[in-house]
């Protein structure tokens, strides 16, 4: 337990010391949201129709942007070796890495979401569903990314490779996430979508840390 809190604290400290890295996915998100009405023309109805999908696509991509750095500096400076040697199980550490990643990408997105929803003329009635779906979905994305990041960390210039590995795995989240928001915007019930997202999250929490830990071990083995 003390390892988990210690690790979390360390990850957040590191992020606080390198704000540019944390901000750049958010800036990407903000820029696209801003540009979006410009590109499509200001017709509010159309905007609102596209909004859920676009919102989710950008969320996906900005999560992806931050995923590459999850283990990289730790691999390069040798911290990952020490992590592997620590007495507590590696999969718990992996879970913490994913959680920290979520706190730094998913959570800020969640916080900015109401503002962006407003800019995209999304009906306010859908806001609740948007937030819940974002919370569940981005958590799945962080967990899935942690696997890809662990497998590619020892490969120099792993960024694009990582995208190749995890983007296909993002697809279900995208479908149900944007589906939920679209349903809510149309005044339908989004409960089924959210339940499915919650199911995916439990599956990811149960399995991803183990795959991630295996990946970390293989990467450390590569020296």
């Amino acid at each position: 337990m003390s390892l988990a809190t210690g690790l979390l604290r360390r990850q957040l400290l590191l992020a606080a010391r390198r704000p540019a890295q944390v901000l750049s996915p958010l800036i990407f998100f903000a820029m696209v949201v801003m540009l979006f009405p410009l590109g499509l023309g200001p017709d509010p109805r159309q905007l609102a129709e596209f909004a859920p999908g676009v919102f989710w696509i950008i969320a996906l991509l900005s999560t992806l942007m931050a995923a590459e750095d999850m283990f990289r500096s730790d691999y390069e400076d040798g911290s990952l070796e020490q992590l592997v040697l620590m007495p507590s199980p590696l999969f718990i550490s992996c879970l913490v890495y994913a959680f920290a990643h979520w706190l730094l990408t998913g959570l800020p997105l969640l916080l900015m979401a109401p503002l962006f929803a407003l800019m995209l003329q999304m009906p306010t009635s859908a806001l609740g569903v948007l937030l819940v779906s974002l919370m569940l979905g981005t958590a799945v994305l962080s967990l899935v990314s942690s696997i890809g990041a662990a497998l590619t960390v020892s490969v120099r210039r792993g960024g694009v490779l990582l995208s190749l590995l995890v983007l296909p795995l993002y697809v279900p989240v995208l479908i149900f996430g944007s589906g939920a928001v679209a349903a809510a915007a149309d005044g339908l019930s989004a409960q089924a979508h959210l339940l499915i997202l919650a199911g995916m999250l439990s599956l990811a929490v149960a399995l991803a840390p183990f795959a991630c830990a295996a990946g970390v071990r293989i990467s450390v083995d590569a020296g």
Partner: protein
Amino acid sequence: MWSFFHKLGSPPWMYRISGTILTWLLPVTIVLLAWGAIWGLLYAPEDFRQGNSYRIIYIHVPASAISLAGYYVMAIAGATSLIWKMKMADIAMRCAAPIGAAFTFLGLLSGAIWGKPTWGTYWVWDARVTSMLVLFFLYVGVLALYEAWDDEALGAKAAAVLSLVGTVNIPIIYKSVDWWFSLHQPATIKFTEAPSMHMDMFQPLLLMIVAFYCLFTCSLLLSMRSEILRRESTTGWVRKLLLGEGAGAV
């Protein structure tokens, strides 16, 4: 049972037995392929709605069918090599990946070309098309991960982990894509006319499907044999093999 497993894991046994299998499977495959192709291209009757373009089915459907099966072959081999550290499974996985990717590519390309005369466009975001595209990406991911590592053994482990993750995800991806499509599409394009297929059209299709399965097996065994030789190049049995048979062959 155990001794069979043991044998499966032994390179020289595998090399020998696969050689024996290939001596008859390879000719059978080629004959089946030629027979099916000629039958489908020239002798099967014309479809009353799609005309001759439907003849693409004899490539398209077998290739598409194999692509998914190939992924599972690869993933099961990967799991076996991760869990039981069986050399042969590792080799099988390494060899299955590019073959599966090739079939997937063929399925995609033939479908796209078929789309032009039937749908009037090369590409439609239909559920099956999209899942197939995702599958292709999954294959590419495994191949790219293999290739990215300096150390082969580690690359194989990493790729095995990835293919296992993919295996858990494929059903979810397929289901969600299905659901996505049925939600959005008020069925403007439907291309699954299989049930009403005429028997004369169906028989060559069946033949081609069998032929493609044989083709997959042949190609897998062939690449496994060369991979076995490469990895065992310093062992005694390879030396004996090469010095015995090498004089004539090389």
